[in-house]
């Protein structure tokens, strides 16, 4: 008995002995979680001593945790604003760098009985629904964009994020651009005061909620709608065309912004001009401190960034229906990596 206890005890102690492992922790956006979890898994298969643990808790958590210093890097689809950048500088004593990883789309997913084909949504319809002013599926605003589709007269159940979310940021950023009322009444942010609706936690939670709730509508990242075989609609863009969200239409949204891409990569590509752009597209960023004390961690992160910008990793992302980064952005990023000290 004593021997067994000793054995168990020493085994657990050994569990505490850390080999030459590099353990990196990150938190943040659920938007790119499917591709991040795939990447970090692949990277670990390749370099078994490097473990990049990523918890998808929402962009708000990513920004907060990296600012507090409780994780090594964050991830967000809503770029940090000036206040947040200043806070990071004040708390951590260095800058925070944004590195775009992929681009994705916020799609309008819905669960309406009898409607299996893609619905067309106008900006007015989306704003109206999420403001709580359009309450029924049979509303004329929806009907006129979808001639020939039998929309039921039932109430629309709005689903939004209950947690701090970059997916939300992208969505409300778009709404603020297309609806003056939204901009003044609700505004932008990773967590907003929603006029109506149920809250789901993470993209996963919202998708789950929509799936379980008849006549519901919500905004989720494209891959979540595809993986869960959910219906999602086309959105009318700034050029007046109803565009289906896809890697192509998301990439189109990015090309317009390439000329004015700022040094820190913080740019919004929602409601981009251009006839094939999907209007609710966005970059998503890894938030990495400019100064990393631990040399091993720094090297691991830098190596990962280079690997991530490479063709194979970007192809993996594409297979998951994210749009790969434009070559110009990749080139710029490779230069920017040297900013990490």
């Amino acid at each position, binding site marked *: 008995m004593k021997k067994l206890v000793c054995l168990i005890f020493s085994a657990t102690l050994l569990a505490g002995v850390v080999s030459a492992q590099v353990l990196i922790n990150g*938190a943040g956006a659920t938007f790119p979680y499917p591709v991040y979890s795939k990447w970090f898994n692949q990277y670990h298969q390749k370099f078994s001593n490097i473990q990049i643990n990523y918890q998808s*808790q*929402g*962009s*708000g*958590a*990513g*920004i*907060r*945790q990296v*600012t507090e210093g409780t994780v090594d890097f964050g991830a967000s689809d809503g770029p940090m604003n000036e*206040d*947040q950048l200043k*806070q990071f500088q004040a708390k951590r004593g260095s800058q925070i760098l944004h590195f775009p990883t992929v681009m994705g789309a916020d799609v309008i997913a819905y669960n309406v009985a009898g409607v299996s084909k893609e619905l067309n949504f106008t900006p007015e319809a989306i704003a109206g629904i999420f403001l709580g002013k359009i309450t029924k599926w049979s509303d004329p605003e929806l009907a006129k964009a979808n001639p020939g589709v039998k929309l039921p007269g039932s*109430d629309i*159940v709005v689903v939004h994020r*209950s*947690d*701090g979310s970059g997916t939300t940021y992208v969505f409300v950023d778009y709404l603020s651009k297309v609806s003056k009322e939204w901009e003044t009444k*609700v*505004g*932008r*942010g*990773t*967590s*907003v*005061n*929603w006029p109506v*609706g*149920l*809250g*789901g*936690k993470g993209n996963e939670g919202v998708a789950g*909620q929509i799936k*379980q*709730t008849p006549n*519901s509508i919500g905004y989720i990242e494209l891959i979540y709608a595809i993986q869960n075989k959910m219906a999602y609609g086309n959105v009318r863009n700034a050029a007046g065309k109803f565009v289906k969200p896809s890697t192509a239409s998301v990439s189109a949204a990015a090309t317009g912004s390439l000329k004015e891409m700022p040094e820190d990569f913080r740019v919004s590509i929602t409601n981009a001009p251009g006839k094939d752009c999907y209007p609710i597209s966005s970059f998503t960023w890894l938030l990495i401190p400019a100064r990393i004390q631990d040399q091993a961690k720094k090297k691991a992160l830098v190596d990962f960034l280079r690997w991530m910008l490479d063709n194979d990793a970007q192809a993996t992302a594409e297979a998951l229906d994210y749009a790969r980064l434009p070559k110009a952005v990749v080139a710029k990023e490779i230069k920017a990596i040297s900013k990490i000290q």
Partner: protein
Amino acid sequence: MPTSTSIAEYARPSERARSFLSRLRGGDAAAHLITFLAAASIVFVTGWIVFELYTNSVLSRREFGWSFLTTQVWDPVAGQFGALPFIYGTLVTSGLALLQAIPLGVGAAIFLSELAPSRVSDALTFLIELLAAVPSVIYGLLGVFVLIPFLKTIEPAIRRVLGFLPYFQGPFYGVSVLTAGFVLAIMVIPFIISISREVLLAVPADQREAAMALGATKWEATWDIVVPFARKGIIGSIFLALARSLGETMAVTMVIGNDPKIHASLFAPGYSIASVIANEFTEATGDLYVHALIELGLVLFALTFVINGLARLLILSTTRKGSS
């Protein structure tokens, strides 16, 4: 006179105790000191918790003062935080839980103490107390996959019967304060049953006998004599159940709908204090936001503190034991 063999019998498992003893070279003083330190550390840690809650909510307390408790708005973008929707959600779900748990719980306790033969009573109580051991997240799991679909099927029936009341109007999405109330009811029933049964059993037999001798039926004896005698303890168990349901986090978070607004209808989603902290704490950006959430924690702490205190008072005065 206790023989050395009977003491030795109890001392035999004390191999460990003997080596422990040899370290207590100082004997009584050392033992007293060590155990005293342990006891003192409990007081210290509890005080520390209150301290941390208080100091880490200072920004929010300064900014909003007492109006924090009466403001309905929870707007992180505008930096406006008010606790009222969460206090409302917490109280309503707990209230619903008690509404269901009290009749069922006290009824079952009466059955178990007065009617069931003692072996059956013990066995059934044992089983019911197992319910109290089921982790909250598992109640949440069952709530999401079993209760919500079930409620969705019976909701039209409820609406037909009670739909004239504002409490049962409006759309029903499955997640709602009603659902949360149901889950909480199941979670707190074992406490009410267990404690009420104990206080009922503690009522002296002569009370019942006297009632019977005067010609009362079993029910009359129970309801008019025994239950009032045990009333304080039963109420204490209800307060205990209430305190438990106020602080319940996971099960509620999974079924309440996460909507920080006050709706009259029970079919509507809501938000409880514990749920909003669980959902938003790790991601609240900005110190004011974090402090507001911690202030909510302080409010919850204060609520449970008061109610637990009342519960203890009532139960202690009835069972007259040092602990229950």
